[in-house]
C-alpha cells in the first residue's frame, strides 16, 4: 500500500530545500566580491538579484513551512533530489542575466552541468565572459563536487539524525567521522587544503609560462576548481589547449586524479593509514581499468598514426583518456578531434573510460570503481563456485577502508545502479541518433553527460535540440545522485497522486 505524503511531510521537505537554496545564495557572495574587485558593475547586479532571490525564497519557506520534526530517510532523499533541481533554477539567475544564454533552459543546463561536476556548457561567447561569472561557473562546480547538501550541512543544519539522511541521499555513504556534520566539515577541510596547494602550484607555473600575475592568479584558482571537482570547466573556450603547456597539463592531471579518489580514502591517508592506497579496491579497480583503456587507446593511435612520439601520446592521448576516466572533462584537443583525429578505436576507449568513471564518495561520476570492483569480484566468485565441489561455499571479500564480505544485498544494489547507468547512456545515445547525429558522437556525448564527465565530440552546443538538452539535464542530475534519490522523488510524486490518505498528523 502506498501512503500519500501528508502536508507536514511536504512542509518538512520544503523547509530542507529552503536551507539548501539559502546555501546557494550565500555562495554567490564570492563571485559578487570578485565582480566588485574587477569593477564589473553589471555582473555585480546579476549576483545581487541572484542572492536576493535565494534569500527571499528561503524566508518564504521559513515563514510558511518551518517544522520541528526531524527528517526521515524518504524526506532526505527527496530534499536532495528536488533540492538540486530547485538549486539549478536559482543558481541560473546570474547566468541568464549575464546575457550569454539565449534561453533559461541553456542557463539551467550549465548550472546542472556545474553542480554535477560535468563541464559541458551551452554558454555562448565564453571568451568575453566577466571574471565574476567565470568565478561563479568554477565555484559552483567546486561546491557541487563536495555536494551542495554537504555545503548546507556544514553551515545550515544543526546536528541531527536527519542530517545523515540528507548526506547519504546525495550519493555519499561513507561517514569519515562519527558525526555527519563533522564529516561534511572534514570533506571541506580536505578540499580547501588542496585548493591552496594546487592553486599556488598552478599560479607559479602559469607565471613561468608567461601569463600576467593578476589573470594567472584567477586562472590558477579556476583551473584548480575545474580539475579537483572533476568538473572540467576552464575560463577560455579552448579549455586546456589555450595554455599550450606540459606543466599545466601535468599539474591538472595530478589534481583531477587525486580529486577523483574517495573522500574516505583521502581521510584514511591523512590520518596515517597509508597502506590503504595499495589495498583499497577502488584504487585497484582504477589502475586496472586505466591500464586496459590505455592499451585500447594505443592500439587506436597506432592505427591512425597521428600522434607519434611518447610526449604527444601522453599530452593528447593519455591526458584526455584520464580526464574521461576521472570524469573531469578538461581537454587538450578540439572537441571535433575526438571524431576526426582519434579514430574509432581510440574514441571508444575514451567512451569506455568515461562510462566506468571515478570513485564512489568522490567528486567524480560514472559506474564508479567500487561498483566495478564489486561486480568483477562477484563474477570471479561465481566462476570459482561453478568449478568448485557442490558442498563448498565460495565467499568473496573486498577491501574498502575496511574488509567487507559481499552478500546478495550489496550485489543487488550494485547491479541496480549499474543497470540504471547503462540505461541512461543507451537512451541518450539513441536519442542523439534519432536526431541525426553519428552513433559514435551520439554515444560519446550521452555517456559523457550520464557519467558527469564533460568531454564532448561536438554534439553538445547551444543549437542542439531542446529535448536533448532536457534529457541531458536529467542524465546529469540522475547520474550525479546515483539514482536512489531520483527514484525516491518519483516515488513521492506517484504517492502524492495515487497514494492512500493516512490518519497521521
Amino acid at each position, binding site marked *: 500500500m502506498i501512503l500519500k505524503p501528508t502536508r507536514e511531510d511536504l512542509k518538512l521537505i520544503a523547509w530542507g530545500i529552503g536551507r539548501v537554496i539559502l546555501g546557494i545564495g550565500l555562495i554567490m557572495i564570492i563571485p559578487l566580491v570578485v565582480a566588485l574587485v574587477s569593477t564589473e558593475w553589471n555582473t555585480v547586479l546579476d549576483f545581487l538579484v541572484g542572492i536576493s532571490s535565494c534569500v527571499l525564497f528561503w524566508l518564504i519557506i521559513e515563514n510558511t513551512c518551518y517544522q520541528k520534526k526531524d527528517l526521515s530517510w524518504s524526506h532526505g532523499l527527496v530534499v536532495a533530489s528536488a533540492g538540486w533541481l530547485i538549486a539549478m533554477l536559482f543558481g541560473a539567475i546570474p547566468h541568464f542575466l549575464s546575457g550569454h544564454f*539565449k534561453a533559461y533552459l541553456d542557463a539551467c543546463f550549465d548550472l546542472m552541468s556545474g553542480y554535477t561536476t560535468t563541464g559541458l556548457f551551452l554558454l555562448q561567447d565564453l*571568451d568575453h565572459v566577466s571574471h565574476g561569472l567565470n568565478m561563479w561557473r568554477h565555484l559552483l562546480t567546486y561546491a557541487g563536487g563536495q555536494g551542495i547538501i554537504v555545503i548546507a550541512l556544514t553551515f545550515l543544519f544543526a546536528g541531527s539524525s536527519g542530517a545523515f539522511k540528507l548526506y547519504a541521499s546525495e550519493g555519499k555513504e561513507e561517514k569519515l567521522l562519527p558525526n555527519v556534520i563533522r564529516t561534511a566539515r572534514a570533506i571541506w577541510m580536505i578540499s580547501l587544503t588542496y585548493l591552496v596547494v594546487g592553486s599556488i602550484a598552478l599560479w607559479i607555473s602559469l607565471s613561468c609560462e608567461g601569463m600576467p600575475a593578476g589573470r594567472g592568479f584567477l586562472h590558477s584558482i579556476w583551473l584548480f576548481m575545474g580539475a579537483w571537482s572533476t568538473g572540467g570547466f576552464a575560463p577560455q573556450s579552448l579549455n586546456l589547449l*589555450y595554455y599550450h603547456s606540459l606543466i599545466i597539463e601535468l599539474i591538472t592531471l595530478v589534481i583531477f586524479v587525486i580529486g577523483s579518489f574517495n573522500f574516505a580514502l583521502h581521510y584514511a591517508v591523512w590520518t596515517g593509514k597509508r597502506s590503504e592506497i595499495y589495498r583499497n579496491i577502488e584504487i585497484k579497480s582504477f589502475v586496472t581499468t586505466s591500464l586496459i583503456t590505455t592499451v585500447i587507446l594505443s592500439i587506436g593511435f597506432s592505427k591512425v598514426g597521428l600522434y607519434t612520439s611518447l610526449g604527444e601520446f601522453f599530452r593528447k592521448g593519455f591526458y584526455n583518456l584520464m580526464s574521461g576516466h576521472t570524469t573531469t572533462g578538461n581537454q587538450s584537443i578540439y572537441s571535433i578531434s575526438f571524431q576526426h583525429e582519434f579514430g574509432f578505436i581510440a574514441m571508444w576507449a575514451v567512451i569506455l573510460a568515461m562510462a566506468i568513471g571515478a570513485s564512489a564518495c568522490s567528486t567524480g561520476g560514472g559506474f564508479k570503481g567500487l561498483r566495478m570492483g564489486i561486480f568483477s569480484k562477484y563474477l570471479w566468485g561465481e566462476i570459482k563456485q561453478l568449478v568448485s565441489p557442490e558442498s563448498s561455499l565460495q565467499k568473496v571479500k573486498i577491501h574498502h577502508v575496511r574488509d567487507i564480505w559481499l552478500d546478495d544485498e550489496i550485489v543487488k544494489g550494485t547491479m541496480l545502479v549499474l543497470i540504471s547507468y547503462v540505461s541512461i547512456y543507451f537512451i541518450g545515445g539513441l536519442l542523439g541518433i534519432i536526431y541525426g547525429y553519428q552513433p559514435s558522437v551520439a554515444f560519446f556525448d550521452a555517456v559523457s553527460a550520464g557519467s558527469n564527465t564533460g568531454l564532448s565530440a561536438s554534439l553538445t552546443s*547551444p543549437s542542439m535540440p531542446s529535448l536533448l538538452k532536457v534529457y541531458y539535464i536529467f542524465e546529469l542530475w540522475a547520474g550525479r545522485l546515483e539514482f536512489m534519490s531520483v527514484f525516491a522523488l518519483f516515488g513521492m510524486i506517484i504517492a502524492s497522486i495515487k497514494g492512500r490518505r493516512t490518519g497521521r498528523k
Partner: protein
Amino acid sequence: MRKLLIALTILFLLIFPQVSLASDTIPIKRIISNMKEYDGKIVTVEGEAIGDKMIRGSYGWITVNDDPYSIKSLEEGGKFKGLSNMGIGVWAPVEELEDITILGGYKNKGDKIRVRGYFHRACHEHGGDTDIHAISIEKIKDGHPFSKPFEFWKLALSLILFGFALLLWKTLNIKKSKAKGAKKE
C-alpha cells in the same frame, strides 16, 4: 577596355571590401574541420586577438578567434549565433606580437589581426598541439573598450527583492518572539 576593367575592379573593391581584402583568409572552423587537408600548409587567418599574450623566451603564444562574436561580441550587443567561440593558438616571434596591445575579454574588443603561417594538425614541437606557427602578424584594426550602459532595471529589481526579504525577515522575527512568549506563559 582596359580602363573599363580597372573601373570595374575599383567598383568591386568598393562594394565588397571585406571579400576582396580577405580573399586568401580561411575560416578557422574550416581548417579545424579539415585538418588533414591543411596540415603543414601555409594558411592565413584573420580575427580578434583574445585572452592573453604568453611570452616564452623569444617566442610567444596568442589566441585568435574568428567566430561571429569576434566581429560583434555579446558584450557589445551582438546577436546570439547558437555557437561557441572558435579560435586557434598562434606561435610567433616576440617582435611579431609587440603590436598587439588590446586583447579581447569582458571589457575589451581585442585588436583585429591577420596571421600568416604554417598550420600543424599535431605540432611535433609543441607536444601534438593543433597550432599555427606565424610567418607574419599584421594588425588590421585597433581594439577598443566596450561601452556598457549601467543596467538600472537590475538594480531596481534587486532592491525590490531585498525589500520583500526584509519584510519577511521582520515577520519571521515577530513569529519567533510570539512563539517564545507563548512558551514562557
